[in-house]
């Protein structure tokens, strides 16, 4: 890959392997790179151990979403979902197990898939993308069983509310919809930009990041990043971060957020921004925490650069993996 391509590469998605020893990252050229974390973290790591152990082209378009199950890696490309086996990938065998395409209404346009979540309760994959709908794929039978319609513009992000078996989706139309995963009906619809405290009309009304831990929800994008109490559907704290946030996560008693701007923001639930840790890429797209392995606990962020920053201690950047 030439230096110009490396310069223009963006990392859109990441996923840790179920054993916690490998990281898969998808970029804007449709490639997926697998990095070995045990090699990169070992005391005698060289510059070579920060390069991927395997790079392969998975899709024609950018890989916007990656998801790991117990033994598989799902990747979303140009309107299609491919499934790879982690054990095959560690043995450098790059043949996908299957590739499926949701039923799109028109066959002319192929909408991209922006987000995927795994519903472990009924072993299904929830997929949201450019056709304004959310498709649910039953992993046991391999068929798309439900379509959730309601958004008037494309779906950017998905999240699962475990306790109540609800799917939350945020989209370009500024609405966060809550769907009951069993009946497929839209239970609530909150338009974030209509709330004065959150709205930032200069950025727009789209929602690009959504995460929940059953009682609370974080959402942001055009409107500022805000913490919502789901039972009363009211915003409780607004985080004053410049730029639009693209991915957030709850971690212990903190909130981690990445977006426009070369830093990872650490915020407290009360609304104060505790710290902003600088990173290599100029703007960040994805944030992942490795909770699958005790000795490889780390936070990795990727964005508009071919480098993926690794944080072993949340307060500073330890080193970078690069494509």
């Amino acid at each position, binding site marked *: 890959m030439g230096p110009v391509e490396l310069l223009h590469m963006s990392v859109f998605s990441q996923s840790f392997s179920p054993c916690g020893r490998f990281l898969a990252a998808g970029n804007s050229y449709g490639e997926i790179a697998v990095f070995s974390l045990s090699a990169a973290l070992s005391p005698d790591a060289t510059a070579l151990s920060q390069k991927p152990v395997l790079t392969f082209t998975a899709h024609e378009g950018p890989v916007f979403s990656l998801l790991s199950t117990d033994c598989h890696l799902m990747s979303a490309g140009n309107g299609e979902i491919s499934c790879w086996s982690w054990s095959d990938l560690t043995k450098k065998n790059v043949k996908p197990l299957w590739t499926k395409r949701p039923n799109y209404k028109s066959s002319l346009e192929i909408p991209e898939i922006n987000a995927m979540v795994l519903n472990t309760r009924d072993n299904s994959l929830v997929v949201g993308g450019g056709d304004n709908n959310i498709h649910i794929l039953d992993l046991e039978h391999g068929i798309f069983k439900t379509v959730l319609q309601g958004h008037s513009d494309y779906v950017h992000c998905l999240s699962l509310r475990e306790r109540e078996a609800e799917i939350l989706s945020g989209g370009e139309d500024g609405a966060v919809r809550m769907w009951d995963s069993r009946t497929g009906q839209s239970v609530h619809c909150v338009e974030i930009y209509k709330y004065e405290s959150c709205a930032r009309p200069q950025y727009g009304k789209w929602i690009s990041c959504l995460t929940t831990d059953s*009682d*609370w929800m974080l959402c942001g994008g055009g409107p500022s990043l805000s*913490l919502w*109490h789901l039972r*009363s559907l*009211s*915003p*409780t*704290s607004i985080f004053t971060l410049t730029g639009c946030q693209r991915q957030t996560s709850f971690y*212990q*008693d903190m909130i981690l957020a990445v977006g426009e701007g070369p830093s990872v923001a650490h915020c*407290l*639930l*009360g*609304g104060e921004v505790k710290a902003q840790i600088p990173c290599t890429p100029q703007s960040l797209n994805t944030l992942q925490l490795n909770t699958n392995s005790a000795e490889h606990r780390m936070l990795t962020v990727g964005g508009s650069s071919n480098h993926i920053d690794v944080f072993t201690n949340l307060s500073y950047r330890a080193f970078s993996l690069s494509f």
Partner: protein
Amino acid sequence: MGAVTDDEVIRKRLLIDGDGAGDDRRINVLLKSFTKWCNSPGTPEEGFTQYQRVMATLGQCEFSMGKTLMVYDMNLREMENYEKIYTNIEQNITSAHEKIAECKKEIQRAKRVRKNRQEYDALAKVIQQHPDRHETLKQLEALDKELQQLSQIKENVDAKLELRKKQFHVLLSTIQELQQTLENDEKSDNDDNNQESPAQTGE
């Protein structure tokens, strides 16, 4: 030449250093002087001086031996001491490890508590924005009372209005009837008069 010099050197070394070094030398010298004293044919004073010398050397040897024994005891006790310190430090290390694990658990607990407190604070902020329930209830009660009073007044006014209407109706109908009766009477009077006058002219 070298061999002769070697022999010379060896002889000289043996002469000077033949007894060994230090304590060993002292014991050898003691033995030699003892045998010399036993076999010496000299005067009793000389014999006594030699005897004194032998005793002195013996004393020196005993002293040196005593010192070495004490040093040996001391080394043994130092070893014990070090063993004790070593086990002590090991215990400290394990207890420090345990304390670290405990503290880590404490930190996790404290983080959870902090998270809960912050969630509570966030919710409390939202709740504070809404007015107090008691006040709202009181306002509702006051409004209810006002409503009741006003409807009572309305009823009273309606009843009064009805009564007045009925009374006016009664009055007006009586007046009308009287008018009618008067008209009828007038009419019948006129008729009577008209009937009488033609009867009178006819006669």
